């Protein structure tokens, strides 16, 4: 692959990394978020502090971590604590600005399913479940979602609500979050392999930017509801040579996530 060309996954990661500009403390999930966050730290937000649910704050990984529990995020970290302390004092205590989530299914309001496809008791497909996602969605100040989109993942109705998004809409979401004292304002951006979505006044996903090479039809064919498009739909700037170099040479040389 020449530097000029880039994969959809690379575009998705670059777009997600750019969205992190100006953020301070990020709760890192495994896989795509991990690469996006590390790319952001090398480009748009060098002072970003990484918190891993495994109990690590201020990680200085010497290689791309293979998992969120990789020993390379421990050696040289600022602090390594028990999971009790990480979830109690860092996440529930309100120190996390951005939580990064993936999803198997998402609805137009940003509610997420990572538990089952089909019925809970007798599922067609058993997914990993919440892990820390349901508490990240409630306690992180805002939530970023990164996922590939299709009619199977962007659905009218999710089969199971693992993590709360804007619930039934912005009004209900804001009222419930205020009444129940949630620290989280909810999802603020969804970055996919086709574009960048933010949430409108009703708390519904709105396509704000199309990735190079992707068309509105591609998006509509990969979305299970009537797509809402921003009046001034932008085109996502292509990855720079520098961004691609960092991904290919430093963050994911094997192309495990971006090939």
């Amino acid at each position, binding site marked *: 692959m020449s530097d000029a060309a880039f994969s959809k996954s690379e575009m998705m990661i670059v777009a997600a990394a750019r969205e992190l500009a100006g953020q301070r403390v990020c709760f890192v999930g*495994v*896989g795509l978020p991990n690469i996006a966050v590390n790319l952001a730290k090398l480009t748009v937000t060098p002072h970003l502090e990484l918190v891993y*649910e*495994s*109990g*690590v704050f201020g990680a200085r990984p010497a290689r791309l971590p*293979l*998992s*969120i*529990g*990789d*020993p390379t995020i*421990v*050696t*040289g970290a600022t602090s*390594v*604590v*028990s*999971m*009790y302390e990480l*979830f*109690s004092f860092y*996440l*529930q205590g309100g120190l996390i600005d951005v939580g990064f989530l993936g999803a198997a299914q998402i609805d137009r309001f940003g509610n997420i399913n990572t*538990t089952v496809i*089909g*019925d*809970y008791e*007798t*599922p*067609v*497909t*058993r*997914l*990993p*479940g*919440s*892990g*820390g*996602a*349901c*508490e990240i969605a*409630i*306690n992180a100040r805002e939530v970023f979602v990164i996922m590939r989109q299709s009619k199977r993942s962007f659905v009218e109705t999710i089969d*199971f*609500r*693992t*993590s*709360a998004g804007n*619930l039934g809409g912005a009004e209900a979401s804001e009222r*419930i979050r205020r*009444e*129940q*004292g*949630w620290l989280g304002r909810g999802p603020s951006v969804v970055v996919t392999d086709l574009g960048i979505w933010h949430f409108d006044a009703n708390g519904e996903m709105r396509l704000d930017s199309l990735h190079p090479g992707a068309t509105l039809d591609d998006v509509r064919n990969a979305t299970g509801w009537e797509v809402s498009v921003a009046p001034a739909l932008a085109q996502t700037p292509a990855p720079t040579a520098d961004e691609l170099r960092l991904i290919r040479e430093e963050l994911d040389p094997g192309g495990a996530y971006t090939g």
Partner: protein
Amino acid sequence: MHDAVAALVRDGDTVAIEGFTHLISFAAGHEIIRQRKRDLTLARLTPDLIYDQMIAAGVARKLIFSWLGNPGVGGLGAIRRRIESATSGGAGQPPRLEIEEYSHFGMVGRYTAGAANLPFYPLRSYFETDMPKANPLIREIESPYGDGKVYAVPPLKPDVSIVHAQRADANGNTQIWGLLGCQKEAAFAAERVIVVVEELVDEAVIRADPNRTVIPGLIVDAVVVEPYGAHPSYVQGAYDRDNRFYLDWDAITKDEDALQSWLNDWVYDLDGRATYLEKLGPERIASLKPGSAPSGSVDYGRYA
């Protein structure tokens, strides 16, 4: 290991082999398989490969967990086949595995309540999700200060908790560095505790750095010395995760026959960790050795 498992793990027990990606006692899990324990309830935040193997071997009746997968790689086939409708619960199919599901913090809270002898642990999770519907043990609780509700999870008190660690003394005073997961809470919550260590050290080594002690011998029933007992997971400072194994597992776990023959070759046909390591080979083991990164020493001071 044989004697510790034979004496302390009983059919029908609730067993927790904890360790978040770090310090997972595969050696204990394999010994439980070899001894053909049955009807166990297996508790663990991340069932990981070890519970996939144990459930494939038929030791378990029920699983209590918060995240089901092969971290950074893929799925756990044996467990999924025991849960999904196409492969379990039907005629001629194995019975569906009973599951009890929480979030990570919920599981940590359950161990904490168990360790602290509390009737529940409160946390700000589960709001507006389907999880309390899926698991009625996740309940609402009102604040006595009139400022709303949070959720509660019940205490989890395993019959046996098994923890792998870098080192312990003969009395079971155990020190861990690197990721701490929730091993301390799981150990204090348990009726019986087995500690498996890379190295048995003199009491003086432990007493030289008392803040490093995670589990006191007071609650430990057996100390087993089993170098590389956490392979293919890792031990901070001693060896790296054997990621090749985690990648290889993805193919094995998708195929029940391949999985069963793997169990024969790597568990049933072996009599313990020593032969497992022989079979693995010295080169493979050597390839996992990290460089050195010393913590440095602090001074506690002599006050006589």
